[in-house]
């Protein structure tokens, strides 16, 4: 309601400009330049505020405050398409506001007057004075029907506004891809950090605690053993501190350092698929592949990374939870969609123990699939996993269509 009222206020000057322009049109016969001038000035008066960055920012705030959206501030540099979308939103806001004003200020009072006239409370001269030509019964009905139609339209527009706000003011496909990519990268970095802290400092503290307990146990009966244990405590503590320093350096450093660890740099993509499959084969999983992926198909980076992660997760789960130590993998690209399918027999009988280990196993139990699914959905794709007969199947579809937008990725700054 408040958002529509705001739109009504904003649209008021434009109504005046339109009235003024309409006046100029009447001089077309006398001065042919007048209509052209009127059109140019009218469009300019709309286009300049509509394309201003500050207008978009204000609209964004207004939408967040009054429509309950969560757009936040625009973080990317605005592309032409973003400016056009924001302008379209501005126009929609003004239009909705105008509709609101017309219903509230013109139609509703007119309806009230009509009803009062019929009821015999107001003299029929009033309606003739207030709206000349609206006093006949046919036009009166038309006014009532018009009010109902405009009211319905207004309610419809009102309920759709939050959705349009997200479409027109929210991030574009390219920006969402970049956002997804960035959040996946951050997630990978956080996971790596957690793993590093777990393996280094966590383990060191466990050792320190154990050795301290051992020293206490032998303090009196075997001082030499106690001394050895205390030496271990000291050494482990010293080493843990150095490792903690290294881990904290990753936290402090806002820019991921590609030199230190590959995962902080560009995440792996489908061009490293052979190596991935190789590592699983080495771990004892017989991977059967059917890759009819044409080399000419241009797979956007972000799609390539997610497809790689999907395969890594699915194969890890096949290795950890599957039966028979085998999995088959199929990947096709047609009609602008990359389809990835992995299936493996799954154990109803207690699975035989598996030999070997994957270099970087995902978390067991398919938990890794959840975050993966969220990102794939964000890319406009889908991911399904579940039993199919005697097989466990993972199916992913990732649209390749976002290529043009993804090319903008480099221009988007965060």
């Amino acid at each position, binding site marked *: 309601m408040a958002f529509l009222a705001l739109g009504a206020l904003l649209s008021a000057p434009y109504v005046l400009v339109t009235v003024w322009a309409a006046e100029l049109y009447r001089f077309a016969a006398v001065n042919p330049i007048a209509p052209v001038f009127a059109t140019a000035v009218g469009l300019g008066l709309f286009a300049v505020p509509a394309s201003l960055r500050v207008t978009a920012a204000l609209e964004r705030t207004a939408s967040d405050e009054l429509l309950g959206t969560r757009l936040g501030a625009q973080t990317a540099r605005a592309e032409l398409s973003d400016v056009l979308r924001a302008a379209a939103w501005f126009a929609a806001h003004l239009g909705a506001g105008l509709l609101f004003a017309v219903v509230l200020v013109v139609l509703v009072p007119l309806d009230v007057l009509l009803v009062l006239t019929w009821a015999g409370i107001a003299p029929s001269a009033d309606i003739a004075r207030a709206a000349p030509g609206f006093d006949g019964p046919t036009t009166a009905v038309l006014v009532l029907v018009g009010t109902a139609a405009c009211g319905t339209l207004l309610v419809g527009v009102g309920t759709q506004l939050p959705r349009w706000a997200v479409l027109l003011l929210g991030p574009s496909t390219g920006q969402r891809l970049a956002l997804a990519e960035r959040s996946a990268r951050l997630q990978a970095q956080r996971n790596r950090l957690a793993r590093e802290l777990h393996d280094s400092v*966590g383990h060191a503290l466990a050792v320190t605690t154990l050795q301290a*307990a051992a020293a206490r146990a032998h303090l009196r009966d075997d001082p030499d053993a106690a001394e050895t244990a205390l030496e*271990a405590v000291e050494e482990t503590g010293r080493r843990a501190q150095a490792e903690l320093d290294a881990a904290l350096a990753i936290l402090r450093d806002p820019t991921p350092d590609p030199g230190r660890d590959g995962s902080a740099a560009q995440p792996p993509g489908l061009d490293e698929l052979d190596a991935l499959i190789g590592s699983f084969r080495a771990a004892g999983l017989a991977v059967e592949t059917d890759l009819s992926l044409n080399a000419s198909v241009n797979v956007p980076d972000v799609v390539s990374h997610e497809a790689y992660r999907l395969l890594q997760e699915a194969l890890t789960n096949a290795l*950890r939870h599957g039966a028979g130590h085998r999995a088959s993998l199929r990947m096709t690209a047609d009609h602008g969609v990359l389809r990835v399918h992995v299936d493996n027999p799954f154990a109803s009988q207690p699975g035989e123990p598996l030999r070997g280990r994957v270099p970087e196993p995902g*978390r*067991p139990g398919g938990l890794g699939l959840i975050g993966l699914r969220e990102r794939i959905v964000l890319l406009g794709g889908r991911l399904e996993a579940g039993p199919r007969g005697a097989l466990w199947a993972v199916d992913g579809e990732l649209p390749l269509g976002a290529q043009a937008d993804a090319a903008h990725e480099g221009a988007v700054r965060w």
Partner: protein
Amino acid sequence: MVTVLVVDDDALVRSGLRAILAGRCAIDVVGEAVDGADAVSQARVLRPDVVLMDVRMPGIDGIQATRLILGAGPADDGGRRTRVLVLTTFGSDEYVYEALRAGAAGFLLKRSRPEELATAIVTVAEGESLVFPEAIRTLAAAHVGAAGRGLTRAGLTQREEEVLRGLARGGNNAEIAADLYLSPETVKTHVASLLAKLGVRDRTQAVIAAYESGFIDPRRGPSS
């Protein structure tokens, strides 16, 4: 005397555990293994009562080693059998749960006090009650529904269901018997019968199945 095999890839962890356990009269550390493969072969030779097993190790990890050791045969020493107690740095470790599902009888944090460590080893060796039932409940809370609803169809009697709840609370035969006004022998019979009906090897596995199937809600606990 409970015989123990200590498995960890870090020599300092092994020596620390050995030193802590050496002074305990009820416990005898009979060997040390440096990784999963070593653990499997030593367990086969030494036949310890309890294997203190690290989870994350190079080569064959603790989960696989647990499967191999327990799969070697349930009662190859006159009814006595080896039980696995998992040792871990963090309780929230996903791998620990994997190890429990692979058949480990319980898990223990490496930062546990020496007394807790000794008690847990003896408890596991006796095989009568769960080690740290609360910790298992917390871990299981993340896996509700993993086993489907199979347990409701297992056809447990009401008594067996009560005994299962008692197990989840961490009670041993005598405690469960006192709670339910039964004799410990009857409780033992009920346990044997419910293990058979659920098709699981021990009490820990039965409680995990109860949580995963939603028979007991791990968020509310066994008393609900």
